């Protein structure tokens, strides 16, 4: 089947998203869709719920692939704020860099950012897996609840502040850890998990021993007089 091609410089975004939501998209065959000339548009390919492949040929604005379900979205460019926010399943790949709040509150699926991600990467993440090829900015994995965040570069300040049960793996340096986030032992199961995540994201051959695992000290789970500084 030929790919379905939309040119965002001539087709209104509404028409494109409506076509992507059409019930008949969810056919027997995995369909391929190309979105050309996005030119930084916001809300490109949001609310998909079908096993389709979407290639976005350029840079996108805010919330690209927001709330994605099932679809495999590849963005051949940079992504603005909140790429794949609240994703439930499927895969979103950003070939360039991502702005802040990448993968915010996402519940599932895999988000790969091949370049760097800015501040708040994985904020309030709820089960998604995020793999960042480069660095992440400050306050990444803030209040992260579940899922895994892998950073092949360095992490900015306040990593994992008020983190719940997300596991973070960082290869480079961490400028500072946020409240209640601590370095943890890398056991065999973690090395295995990390290898699987890197593989799924297309990064193989990293020296796994260079990574450190971070997670919650769980000392803020209950209100306590001694924690007032952290509240």
């Amino acid at each position, binding site marked *: 089947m030929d790919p379905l091609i939309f040119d965002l410089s001539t087709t209104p975004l509404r028409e494109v998203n409506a076509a992507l939501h059409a019930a008949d998209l969810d056919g027997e065959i995995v369909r391929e869709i190309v979105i050309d000339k996005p030119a930084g548009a916001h809300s490109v390919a949001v609310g998909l719920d079908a096993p389709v492949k979407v290639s976005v040929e350029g840079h996108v604005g805010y919330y690209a692939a927001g709330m994605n379900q099932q679809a495999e979205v590849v963005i051949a460019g940079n992504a603005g*704020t909140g790429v794949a926010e609240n994703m439930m399943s499927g895969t979103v790949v950003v070939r360039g860099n991502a702005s802040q709040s990448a993968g915010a509150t996402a519940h599932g699926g895999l988000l790969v950012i091949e370049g760097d991600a800015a501040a708040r990467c994985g904020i309030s993440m709820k089960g998604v897996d995020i793999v960042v090829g480069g660095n992440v900015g400050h306050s990444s994995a*803030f209040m992260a609840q579940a899922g895994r965040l892998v950073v092949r570069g360095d992490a900015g300040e306040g990593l994992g502040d008020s983190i719940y049960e997300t596991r973070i793996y960082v290869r480079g340096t961490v400028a500072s850890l946020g409240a209640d986030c601590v370095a943890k032992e890398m056991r065999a199961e973690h090395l295995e998990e990390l290898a699987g995540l890197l593989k799924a994201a297309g990064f193989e051959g990293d020296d796994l021993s260079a990574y450190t695992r971070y997670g919650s000290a769980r000392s803020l789970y209950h209100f306590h007089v001694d924690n007032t500084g952290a509240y």
Partner: protein
Amino acid sequence: MSTSNWGLRESATFDRQTIAAIQRAAETGIYDIRGGGAKRALPHFDDLLFLGASMSRYPLEGYRERCDTDVVLGSRFAKFPLHLATPVTIAGMSFGALSGRAKEALGRGASEVGTSTTTGDGGMTPEERGQSKHLVYQYLPSRYGMNPDDLRKADAIEVVLGQGAKPGGGGMLLGQKISERVAGMRTLPQGIDQRSASRHPDWTGPDDLAIKINELREITDWEKPIYVKVGATRTYYDVKLACHSGADVVVVDGMQGGTAATQDVFIEHVGIPTLAAIPQAVQALQELDLHRKVQLVVSGGIRNGADVAKAMALGADAVAIGSAALIALGDNDPRLAAEYEALGSAAGFYDDFQDGRDPAGITTQDPELAARFDPVAGGHRLANFLRVMTMEAQTIARACGKAHLQHLEPEDLVAISIEAAAMARVPLAGTSWIPGQGGF
């Protein structure tokens, strides 16, 4: 007052409640967290009165002449606005704060009279969706349980920036109420003291909000009305910015508004009274030529049909109730007096919603306590209460000669205190004086 000694004088500054608060803080080392709304006396709807018709205006006949009550919410951009039979809606209260059965009862009661109910900071339950004809799905900073399937099932979406009880504060739910089901829906470890974020994770400010609202519309194919809810503070600006961001409906919640669990200091000291917020919101809408085009829903201390009529006369299109709905379901029932006392409270005073031990089975996740509450009977009580509120508001509207609740206007009102006159921007009774606006 237990004393018979007339020589004892209680300090107005250090009264018994103040003393008890200091003692409690010294003992526990942690601030007081409770449910409910502001308890201090504030200028409120009771400080306003209606000018019934007589010579210069004539009234409508009760029962014989129509006084309509319906309202359409979300007609600005949404393909499918809500058409409600009464302007009294049910405010967002989370599953987590409330039991699943209480949420179901809210849906039953609201649907029985043709009005809407609202989810809350914890996602949408099937009980609630199943029993609610019109269900508003909240989009909060925590995004607990937020998912596109439920978004598509919703009849409207409410982006929550704040609540009147705690403008600028995030959600709280203490460990006693994080049951297995609640924890599962929120993706949290069971039994922890949950503190949720006060800012949205992927947008800040009105320009971002416009893009966010556009995303929500794109995901749901422009079908659903989008509300923006703010706690009342800088209401004039907030309402203008909400309109600029593309809201279909703005919800303004005054400081008397209830909460499930918030620091007492926050509830009592942050925000402005509902009465002060409404004229600011209406002015903002009028200046944008959006009054009645972007609907205004007002909440915070709405208790009866008179409050409904007054809020609407000041320019609201609809109201929302939280605390009053819980009372209608059976909260603070005097028949449970002994049980409230066993918890160190009393019927009529119980506000430990954070604690999860509600003997009425409403603000709890304890299966035994929750089982005490009958959602069918509770829903019917709520429907009764909603009918009474609507009829009371109609009674007042007819007396003012209005064939629709929305025809009520500020000219129908006077204030009985200078504060209320200044805040509500209606004249002090018997004068034409609106403080701050000239006159005598």
